[in-house]
């Protein structure tokens, strides 16, 4: 029986028959459906995915007219940052990087961000970042985002003023661990709003609350409350919220937003929370399992994101980068893998952007 070259979740080529590809696609989608309590992919959608993998073209693409909007996270640093941020470490300025994304790379939006990519870190240098935003707005035409993370982890000892839940929980100091997260969330919300209102004063188009929930449910709550407060104070500032993972970790376990417990939420529930907070564009994340094939991972990611898109009333821009959205975990992702994930997200999950 013929075999086809497909990627594993760690990026290596493996050989699979069409039947094996179909089996992995069905199992991947079923895993998402089971975890998220959502419908699995139907036979036509599985057939389309089989076709994508059996087609051995190096690059595949969406049908003309089906193109969607591209947004990014990580800002301008993918060119000047080092490999730790999957960057090229080229000697080039931040505004020039934005111009390259706009004029040479075919992007639909552009994003500025500080190399540390956390709002806590940006707060003391916000005037510097305002200057960059103002310069960028003069030099570019595309909608300009500013991206960073709520990153609640930076508020815990030894980096921040609150006790570290990772130390407190194993020591059985449960109440202290919960209180530390609640206090840190209030602090983080204050920092995000501080930065957001000032960047809005400078004329910024979009604030990207990226990697929300990276430190668990309290982190997600801080991002949601910050979005809500920003929409109240500077309603003209658009907000994109990108997630950290497919599942909100219950590091606290009991925090709620609008009366709903955040721990354990999958993308179709996360987007309802983002929408309630006033977020304009939502970015779901589905993590890649390196021990499974790309067909398994992509079907699983598409199944989660499709349910999110169907639930949402706001545009959904799926995260489809290194190690998320069905793409193998590799800092030099292959075009054959990226293009298949891109097509599947647009034509099956029906995303509004990537």
């Amino acid at each position, binding site marked *: 029986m013929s075999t086809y070259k497909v990627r594993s979740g760690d990026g290596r080529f493996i050989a699979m028959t069409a039947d094996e590809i179909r089996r992995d696609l069905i199992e991947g989608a079923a895993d998402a459906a089971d975890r998220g309590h959502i419908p699995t992919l139907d036979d036509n959608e599985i057939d389309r995915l089989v076709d994508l993998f059996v087609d051995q073209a190096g*690059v*595949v*693409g*969406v049908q*003309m*007219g*089906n*193109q*969607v*909007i*591209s*947004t*990014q996270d990580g800002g301008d640093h*993918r060119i000047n940052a080092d490999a730790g941020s999957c960057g090229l470490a080229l000697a080039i300025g931040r505004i020039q990087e934005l111009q390259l*994304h*706009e*004029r040479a*790379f*075919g*992007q*639909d*939006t552009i994003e500025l961000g500080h190399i540390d990519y956390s709002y806590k870190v940006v707060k003391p240098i916000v005037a510097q970042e305002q200057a960059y935003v103002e310069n960028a*707005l*003069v*030099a*570019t*035409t*595309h*909608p300009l985002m500013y991206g960073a993370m709520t990153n609640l982890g930076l508020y815990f000892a030894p980096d921040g003023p609150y006790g570290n839940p990772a130390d407190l929980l194993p020591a059985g100091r449960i109440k202290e661990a919960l209180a530390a997260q609640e206090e840190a969330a209030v602090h983080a919300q204050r920092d995000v709003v501080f930065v957001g209102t000032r960047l*809005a004063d*400078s*004329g*910024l*188009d*979009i604030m990207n609350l990226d990697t929300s929930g990276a430190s668990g449910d309290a982190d997600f709550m801080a991002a949601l409350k910050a979005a809500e407060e920003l929409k109240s104070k500077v309603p*003209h*500032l*658009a907000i*994109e919220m990108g997630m950290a993972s497919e599942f909100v970790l219950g590091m606290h376990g009991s925090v709620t937003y609008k009366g709903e417990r955040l721990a354990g939420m999958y993308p179709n529930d996360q987007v309802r929370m983002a929408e309630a907070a006033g977020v*304009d*564009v939502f970015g779901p994340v589905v993590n890649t399992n390196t021990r499974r094939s790309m067909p398994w991972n992509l079907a699983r990611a598409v199944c989660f994101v499709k349910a999110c898109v169907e639930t949402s*009333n*706001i*545009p959904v821009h799926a995260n*489809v*980068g*290194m190690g998320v959205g069905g793409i193998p975990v590799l800092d030099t*992702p292959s*075009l054959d893998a*990226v*293009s298949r994930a*891109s*097509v599947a*997200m*647009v034509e099956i999950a029906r*995303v*509004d*952007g*990537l």
Partner: protein
Amino acid sequence: MPIAHSVVSGMGGMRTAGDLVARMQFTRKMRISEAKTYVADKLKVSTHDLSDTAVMRELREELGFGVVLGIPGDPKGMEAKERISEVLDIPVNCVDRVRRRAQERRS
């Protein structure tokens, strides 16, 4: 990574009308089909034309929206966004800031 997505499924930014459709998503929370229809209606073209460089290259220059090429004297940056704001009838924050400050100086 961004270039890969742009080639496979992206609208193409200033080469076409990607930045314009993106603005509708962020200023009006429009889903992709609604955003494309809105922009196409404003520009009096079809939604397919929005991703067509042959159509949009000429139309962008005609409307003063800025083009991807470096044409001396052609609107770009703030000037192009002022035109985009007017034609699409949407707020562009940095343009509104300039307008507001100019108005404050005059009054």
